[in-house]
């Protein structure tokens, strides 16, 4: 009897030690990885080498020239309209239910890692146009239990709406707030009878209540050899291209200009670069 109890306590003790030790060992492993990949964007500009997608594949990315957006009032909004009307993104008229594929962020919210102490006041007024970062190490993809969100052959973080079960793990995982949940029926109307999608584009499906959505880098336009709608609307303030193609225009710009990424230290390897 007694020896049985001893055995039991020993085993329980071992179990507890394993339980405490394993996660911390795991954590330090994770940290090691994060540090290794937090070399920031100087290294990420080269990209690909340690990407989640096949390094031989493409990784589409974007350079956003913030100054041009600041100098041209309404340009950001113009890009948003181009995207949202094309993709039937509903406007529920309130922040809580908001669905956004591309939006304008305040400088201090977009780049919280950069010190705001004694910063040039103009910087805080800069409209930071932002969208899904199509990270080469996307945490949302890891979080998705159904593989509804995945990295496609062009390096685009895609949503397969047919598989989305609306669990919102991906929203919790995304550090950029690039994902929105449909709390309401996007085909519905508000109290005064105004439809949430003012004019439906018959060439692109809407979504339903209960699915998560986000930017698809206009994969339907890329297939036709067109640029993403926001890039077309931005008229030069955005440069789109394959970060894994050494000869691409975007790589040329990245090698010449000083750019920053959003929250690079998280190790997600964002594919969006900002000229400030």
């Amino acid at each position, binding site marked *: 009897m007694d020896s049985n109890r001893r055995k039991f306590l020993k085993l329980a003790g071992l179990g507890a030690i394993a339980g405490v030790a394993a996660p911390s060992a795991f954590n330090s492993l994770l940290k090691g990885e994060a540090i290794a990949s937090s070399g920031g964007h100087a290294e990420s500009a080269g990209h690909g080498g340690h990407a989640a997608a096949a390094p031989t594949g493409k990784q589409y990315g974007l350079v956003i020239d913030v100054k041009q957006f600041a100098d041209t009032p309404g340009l950001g909004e113009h890009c948003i309209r181009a995207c949202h009307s094309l993709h039937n993104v509903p406007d529920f008229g309130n922040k809580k239910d908001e669905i956004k594929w591309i939006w304008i962020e305040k400088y201090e919210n977009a780049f919280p890692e950069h010190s705001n102490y004694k910063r040039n006041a103009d910087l805080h007024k800069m409209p930071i146009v932002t969208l899904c970062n199509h990270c080469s190490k996307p945490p949302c993809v890891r979080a998705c239990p159904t593989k509804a969100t995945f990295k496609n052959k062009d390096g685009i973080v895609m949503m*397969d709406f047919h598989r989305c079960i609306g669990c919102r793990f991906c929203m919790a995982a995304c550090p950029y707030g690039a994902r929105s949940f449909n709390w309401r029926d996007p085909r519905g109307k508000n109290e005064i009878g105004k439809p949430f999608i003012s004019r*439906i584009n018959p*060439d692109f*499906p809407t979504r339903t209540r209960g699915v998560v959505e986000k930017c698809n880098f206009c994969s339907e336009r890329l297939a036709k050899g067109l640029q993403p709608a926001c890039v077309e609307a931005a008229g030069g303030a955005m440069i789109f291209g394959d970060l894994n193609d050494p000869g691409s225009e975007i790589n040329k710009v990245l090698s010449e200009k000083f750019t920053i990424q959003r929250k690079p230290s998280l190790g997600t390897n964002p594919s969006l670069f900002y000229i400030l």
Partner: protein
Amino acid sequence: MPMYDMNKILPGLIIFAGLMTFPIWYNSGNAGAVPKPEKPTNAKECVRPTDYMRTSHMVLLNEYRDAVVRDGERGAIKDAGGVEYDEKSLMLGCMKCHVSAKKFCDECHTYAAVKPYCWECHIQPKETN
């Protein structure tokens, strides 16, 4: 052997037989109304043999869906003036020939009592007349 109450038993039997077979003759009129999905006017043939389409169009739609969404293969894309037939798309493929979901898809689906949820997101072509 004397028959008791024949005048009651016989009508009773007839009513009983009628009630038992009610489902059969009640539906006989409807079962005859085979669905007649509208034929496209702009094409003679479907993207696959008609027999295959009749039984397996949902399989083909799933293949299209996975090819487009997961593998990024949208198939041929319409060029400037030419008619493009095999775009892997429900709205931009199938419905360019089958111009009415009501007179085509629903015609069969109502009969077969299936209600695909695709149209909650995919957009049906505008119904003319």
